[in-house]
C-alpha cells in the first residue's frame, strides 16, 4: 500500500512546488542597494529635472473606477464609448521614445492594436481593427503649449492614446498646493528598478480621492507608476505602471510610419494654435469628447484649474466653465451649450452610457469611484472628484 502512495507523490509535489513558486513570485523582489534618502521636495525636483529620455517599455493599466466592463472584441465603438473603453478594464501598451520628437505608443488590444506614431511634426494614428490611418502635421511650435512647468513631455495631449506615467505624474504634481500632503514612503520596486514612492494625500475629507502614489525612478527621475486610490476601496481605483523598461534608444525604424496599402487614410488639419480640435476623427483621445466625458477622469478631477480650460478650448468662447470650491473639493460647472446638449443626448441614446448613468432628481448622474459627473435636465454639466450630493447641491444652488 505504501508503494502505491509513493507513486502519487509527484502528483502532490508538483502542484505544491508550483504554488510555492507562484507565492515567491508575488512577493516584492528585494532591491539591491537602497536609494539615498530624499525629501519630497528633492524627489519632486528629480522628476522636474529629468529630461525626456530614450526608452522602450511596456505599460500596464488597471482600473476599478466603477465603470461597466465594455466588450473588447467586435467593431470599435466610436466617440465617448472608446474613451470609456480605455479607462475601464485592463490595458497593455508599449511605449517607445527617442528624444522628445520621436514617440510611438501601441495599445495592445485583443487581436488588434491602436498606434500613435510621432516623428518630428508628423503624427500618424492607426487602428488595425478598421484599418484606418489618420495623418496630421503638428504646427512647428507644438509641444510648447503642453509644457507643465519645467517638465516637458513630447506629444503629451496629442498622442492621447493612453497617458504615460509621465503625463499623469506631471499633472498630479502641478496640483500640489497647501491642500495636499506630500510624503515619501519607503522605496518600491517597479519594473525591476528601485524607485522613490511619492505619496500625495488630500488634507480634506470632502473628496473621493484617498491618495495618489507615484513611483519615481531613483536613477533617472522618470515616473514609473501612478496609483490612484479612492476612499473606501482597498484596491487602487486606477493604476498605470511600467512592467518592463529599458532606457536604451529604440530602433529608429519604429518611428518611420507610412500607412499600409489598403488602409483608409484621413487627413486632419490642425489649427495653428492648440492641437485640441480634431474634427470628425474618432480617436479615443478626441479632445471635444474629452470635454464632455471627464477629461481622462483623473487629471480633470485633480487639477481643474490647469487642465480644464485647455481641454475645452474650442468651446471656450461660447461657454466657459466655472469652478466652485477649492483644491480637492472643486466642482466644475459647464454651462448649457451645444456641446453639453450633445453630451446629454449621447448620455440618453447610447445604451452603454445609459447603464452607467443613474437618474437623480433634476438630471442624470454618471458616477465612478474617483469622479462624479452630473448632467442636469437643463443642459448644464457638473463634474468633480466629490461625493454626488455635493454636485446636487451645487446644481440646486444656481
Amino acid at each position, binding site marked *: 500500500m505504501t*508503494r502505491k502512495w509513493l507513486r*502519487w507523490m509527484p502528483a502532490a509535489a508538483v502542484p505544491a512546488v*508550483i504554488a510555492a513558486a507562484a507565492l515567491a513570485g508575488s512577493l516584492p523582489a528585494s532591491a539591491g542597494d537602497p536609494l539615498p534618502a530624499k525629501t519630497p521636495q528633492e524627489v519632486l525636483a528629480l522628476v522636474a529635472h529629468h529630461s525626456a529620455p530614450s526608452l522602450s517599455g511596456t505599460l500596464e493599466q488597471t482600473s476599478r473606477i466603477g465603470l461597466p466592463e465594455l466588450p473588447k472584441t467586435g467593431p470599435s465603438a466610436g466617440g465617448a464609448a472608446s474613451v470609456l473603453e480605455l479607462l475601464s478594464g485592463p490595458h497593455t501598451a508599449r511605449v517607445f521614445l527617442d528624444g522628445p520628437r520621436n514617440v510611438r505608443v501601441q495599445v495592445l488590444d485583443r*487581436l488588434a492594436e491602436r498606434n500613435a506614431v510621432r516623428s518630428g511634426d508628423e503624427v500618424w494614428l492607426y487602428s488595425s*481593427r478598421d*484599418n484606418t490611418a489618420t495623418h496630421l502635421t503638428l504646427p512647428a511650435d507644438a509641444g510648447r503649449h503642453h509644457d507643465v512647468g519645467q517638465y516637458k513631455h513630447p506629444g503629451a495631449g496629442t498622442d492621447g492614446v493612453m497617458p504615460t506615467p509621465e503625463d499623469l505624474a506631471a499633472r498630479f504634481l502641478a496640483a500640489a498646493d497647501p491642500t495636499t500632503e506630500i510624503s515619501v514612503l519607503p522605496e518600491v520596486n517597479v519594473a525591476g528598478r528601485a524607485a522613490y514612492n511619492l505619496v500625495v494625500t488630500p488634507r480634506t475629507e470632502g473628496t473621493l480621492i484617498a491618495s495618489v502614489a507615484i513611483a519615481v525612478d531613483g536613477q533617472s527621475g522618470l515616473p514609473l507608476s501612478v496609483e490612484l486610490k479612492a476612499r473606501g476601496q482597498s484596491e487602487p481605483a486606477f493604476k498605470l505602471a511600467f512592467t518592463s523598461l529599458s532606457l536604451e534608444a529604440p530602433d529608429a525604424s519604429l518611428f518611420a510610419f507610412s500607412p499600409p496599402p489598403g488602409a483608409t487614410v484621413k487627413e486632419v488639419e490642425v489649427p495653428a494654435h492648440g492641437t485640441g480640435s480634431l474634427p470628425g476623427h474618432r480617436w479615443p483621445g478626441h479632445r471635444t469628447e474629452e470635454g464632455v466625458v471627464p477629461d481622462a477622469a483623473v487629471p480633470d478631477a485633480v487639477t481643474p484649474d490647469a487642465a480644464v480650460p485647455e481641454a475645452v478650448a474650442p468651446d471656450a468662447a461660447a461657454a466657459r466653465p466655472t469652478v466652485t470650491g477649492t483644491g480637492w473639493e472643486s466642482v466644475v460647472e459647464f454651462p448649457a451649450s451645444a456641446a453639453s446638449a450633445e453630451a446629454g443626448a449621447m448620455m440618453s441614446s447610447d445604451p452603454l452610457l445609459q447603464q452607467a448613468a443613474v437618474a437623480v432628481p433634476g438630471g442624470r448622474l454618471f458616477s465612478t469611484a474617483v469622479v462624479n459627473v452630473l448632467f442636469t435636465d437643463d443642459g448644464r454639466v457638473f463634474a468633480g472628484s466629490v461625493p454626488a450630493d455635493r454636485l446636487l447641491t451645487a446644481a440646486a444652488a444656481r
Partner: protein
Amino acid sequence: MPNKEVVATDAPAKASSGLPLLASELSVLFRRRRTWAMLLALAAVPVLMAIAVRVSSAVPPGRGPAFLDRITQNGLFVGVTALLVCVPLFLPLTVGVVAGDTIAGEAGLGTLRYLLVAPAGRVRLLLVKYAGAAAFCIVAPLVVALAGAGIGTALFPVGPVTLLSGDVITPGEAVVRLLLVAAYLTVSLLGLSAVGLFLSTLTDVPVGAMAATIVASVVSQVVGELPQLEWLHPWLFSHYWFGFADLLRQPIAWDSFGSNALLQAGYIAVFGALAYGRFVTKDVLS
C-alpha cells in the same frame, strides 16, 4: 494482486532506448484513417473560407473574424484567419480525440497489456504516448497554416503583409510569422494534451476520455469569459490561446509566448504527474 502487478510491470525498464517504440507509435498514429480525416477536415477550413471569400463580394472591415477583410488584399492572411477560427473549437477537438485515445484506446482494444508485457516500462509507454499526442499538436496547426497559405496564394494576390501595428513586412517574413503562429498554437495545445493523457488513464472507454478532454477545453474557455472569475483566468490553459496575435505586432511582443510556454509547462507537469500516479498504480486488466 494489485501490488504484484505494479511490481511486475513497473520494474525499471531495461536500458534499451524508447525510440523504436516512439517510431511505431508515430507510424500507427499517422497511418490511422481517423488521423488523416481530422487533418483533412482541418485543412478544409482555410479552403472553404478562401473559396467563400473569393466568390462573394468584399468583406467590410470589422465583420466576421478578425483579419477576414484582409484576405482579398493578401492571400497569406487566409492562414492566420483560419488558425484564428480553428483555435476555439476545431484544434482542441482534434487534439482531444488524439490525446484522449492515447491510453484508453489501447485499453479499449485490449492491446494495453500486450504493450506492457513487452519490456517497455509504464513510464516509458506514457512518455511515448504523450510524444505522439505532441506530434499531432505540431502537425495540426501546421496543416491549417500551410493549407491556408497555399489556397490563399492560389486564389488571391500575395504581396507585402500589413501587421497589426500598421507596419508592412515582405511575404517571406510573413511566412516566418505564420510558422511562428503555428508554433505558438502547438505550445498552446500541449497543456490540453496533458489533460487528455491523464483523463485517458482513468478509463478504458476511449470515447469517454476524448469527450472529457474536449469538455475540459470548452469549460476552460467559458470560465475564461466570466469576469466574476477573473482571479482564475491566468491559471486556465486556454488563457493565452489568442495571444498569438502578439506575434503579428512590430516589434514582436514575446511576453505572451513566454507566459504561455510557462503555463503549458505547468499543466504538463501537474497532469503528467497525475497520469503517472494513476497509470503506474492502475490494474491493467484489458
